[in-house]
């Protein structure tokens, strides 16, 4: 019994490690008076160690804790994605949280808790674990969204995110309830074995649909997207960055695990629903983004659109598109963290100054930042040789192979629309004169390093896409 527990804990080492790390950081914060440096360094080093652990347990493919969690393989890959996002977030946020007055240890605790939740969410083979992981991811995020408590926008964003998030949780668990009732189990693998028998049950399909609502809410797909712009705009910028990359990655990883990899809803009605969600997200996200004046809000609509692209991969199904979606997640994570990071550098201390007009003349003031942001914008459009191009490419290829050519066409057309608003940022940065109120970017050494890592990642993945693709394709 004890040996079994120990083996299982070792096989799920990244998650166990994150739990221990978050407890250590909470204790450090509780035991000492003045905040900052220690928590930051302990969190960062701990996350890096956990990335190492995730690589270490990669070969241990299987399940642990009586089939509740997945170990190794897919779980390791997703864990590395989330941990990288967390590490880059806290590095980019080092100076930022000081600027906006959220510089207390709890910021790091909450980021660590969220990361733990993401990893469990994406590795849960029992819907029970999926659910608890989802909540462990969401609840600290509600707080992070409003961590600058005296800022009106931030508290409003927190309230909206909380109310709508809890609302969607209700649908999610109701779906699980109906699935449990029809199958008598919550273990995903057991359900997957008899999936053909179950999918003729109307209540089972209703349950799956309700779960899909919960997932669609978390990834921010239309028509469950209404929280995304408000929350991304209102929350502290680096929190929005973490939401748009980490949370989206976690939700998509779990969606892949539950729906594509195991339930295999190919050619079922659920698939049509996902396709509709995907088209709606691409169209509405890209078109509304055209008229946005605020950079964060624009990125919010862009993230809705990108959720649409990734949903194409979910619709197509099969190993190729899973690899494509994972690739897309890595590319999008690096790009978007960088873009939000630059916005956080030039932001004012009262969390204003992220309008697109505030980027005017950035090239004159900080040429390096402007060039890097340009790289990110091109990657978001999906131009070669940047990472975003291959993300879209693999997903579109997988869709065409599975007979979803029309989805690909919609995807390409909406990508063309998106060129306008991404390029507008580039034009404003490079060709428009500075405004009267010049904001100096503040980022510090860690921020510069993290930004360099993100930019280098975007370029390297763009030039050598096969490295990442081989890595994720090895899973299937």
């Amino acid at each position, binding site marked *: 019994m004890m040996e079994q527990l120990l083996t299982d804990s070792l096989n799920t080492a990244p998650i166990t490690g994150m739990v221990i790390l978050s407890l250590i950081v909470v204790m450090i914060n509780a035991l000492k008076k003045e905040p900052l440096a220690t928590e930051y360094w302990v969190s960062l080093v701990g996350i890096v160690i956990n990335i190492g652990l995730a690589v270490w347990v990669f070969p241990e493919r299987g399940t642990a804790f009586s089939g509740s969690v997945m170990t190794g393989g897919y779980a390791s890959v997703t864990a590395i994605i989330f941990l990288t996002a967390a590490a880059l977030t806290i590095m980019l946020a080092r100076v930022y949280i000081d600027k906006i007055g959220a510089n207390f240890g709890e910021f790091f605790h909450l980021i660590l808790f969220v990361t733990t939740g993401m990893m469990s969410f994406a590795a849960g083979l029992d819907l029970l674990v999926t659910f608890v*992981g989802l909540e462990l991811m969401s609840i600290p995020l509600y707080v992070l969204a409003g961590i600058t408590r005296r800022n009106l926008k931030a508290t409003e964003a927190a309230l909206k995110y909380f109310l709508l998030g809890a609302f969607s949780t209700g649908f999610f668990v109701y779906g699980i309830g109906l699935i449990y009732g*029809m199958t008598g189990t919550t273990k995903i693998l057991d359900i997957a074995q008899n999936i053909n028998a179950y999918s003729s049950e109307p209540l089972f399909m209703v349950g799956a649909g309700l779960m899909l609502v919960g997932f669609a809410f978390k990834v921010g797909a239309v028509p469950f997207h209404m929280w995304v712009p408000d929350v991304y705009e209102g929350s502290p910028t680096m929190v929005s960055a973490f939401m748009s990359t980490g949370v989206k990655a976690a939700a998509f990883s779990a969606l892949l695990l539950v729906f594509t990899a195991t339930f295999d809803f190919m050619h079922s009605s659920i698939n049509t629903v996902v396709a509709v969600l995907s088209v709606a997200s691409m169209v509405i996200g890209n078109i509304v983004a055209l008229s946005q004046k605020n950079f964060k809000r624009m990125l919010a609509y862009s993230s809705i659109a990108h959720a649409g692209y990734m949903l194409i991969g979910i619709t197509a199904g099969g190993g190729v598109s899973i690899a494509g979606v994972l690739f897309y997640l890595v590319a999008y994570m690096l790009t978007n963290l960088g873009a939000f990071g630059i916005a956080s550098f030039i932001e004012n201390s009262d969390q204003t100054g992220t309008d697109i007009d505030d980027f005017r003349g950035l090239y004159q003031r900080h040429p390096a930042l402007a060039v890097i942001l340009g790289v990110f914008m091109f990657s978001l459009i999906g131009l070669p040789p940047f990472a975003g191009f291959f993300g879209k490419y693999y997903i579109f290829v997988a869709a065409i192979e599975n007979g979803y050519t029309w989805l690909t066409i919609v995807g390409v057309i909406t990508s063309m629309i998106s060129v306008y608003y991404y390029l507008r940022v580039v034009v404003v940065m490079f060709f428009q004169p500075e405004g009267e109120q010049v904001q100096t970017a503040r980022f510090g050494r860690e921020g510069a390093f993290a930004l360099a890592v993100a930019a280098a990642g975007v370029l390297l993945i763009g030039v050598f896409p096969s490295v990442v693709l081989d890595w994720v394709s090895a899973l299937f």
Partner: protein
Amino acid sequence: MSSELIVFLILAAVGVLSGILMITRPNPVNSALFLILNFMALAGLYITLHAQFVAIIQILVYAGAIMVLVLFVIMLLNLEDEEPLREQMSKRHYGSLLVALLALVLIVQVIGWNSGGTLETMREQSPHALRIGTVEHIGSVLFTEHVYPFELTSILLLAAIVGAIVMAKKRFP
């Protein structure tokens, strides 16, 4: 009608009525009280399903802790009545009501007239129902088969404590 059915119908009526009253009362405290009544009715329903441990925990956690917290906050903020629902009804509200009614009809149809499916095999409670509701059985399963989500929940509660303090503490840097 069997006595079980009568008990069920009474509890169900209390549950539904208190739910409807909960969402229509303008005063938040009245709403909270009807919600507590609803929780009591649910606890009764759990007893009819032989889930005694769930029933008592329902009262202990929901009625005894969560709702006290909600009432505490309502009183602390000294919230006033919302304007009556009738006066603030807009098209959007009627729309949502319509959608909800439609969903209800759909669900009732799926559940009620879905003959031949798995549901048809569930005419009666399982003979195991009495055994699985006890504290002993639930405890042993919780700490063996479901130990992982259990430990994860403890982290979740810690995160919630940290989060609540961050948001609500008065003097904070």
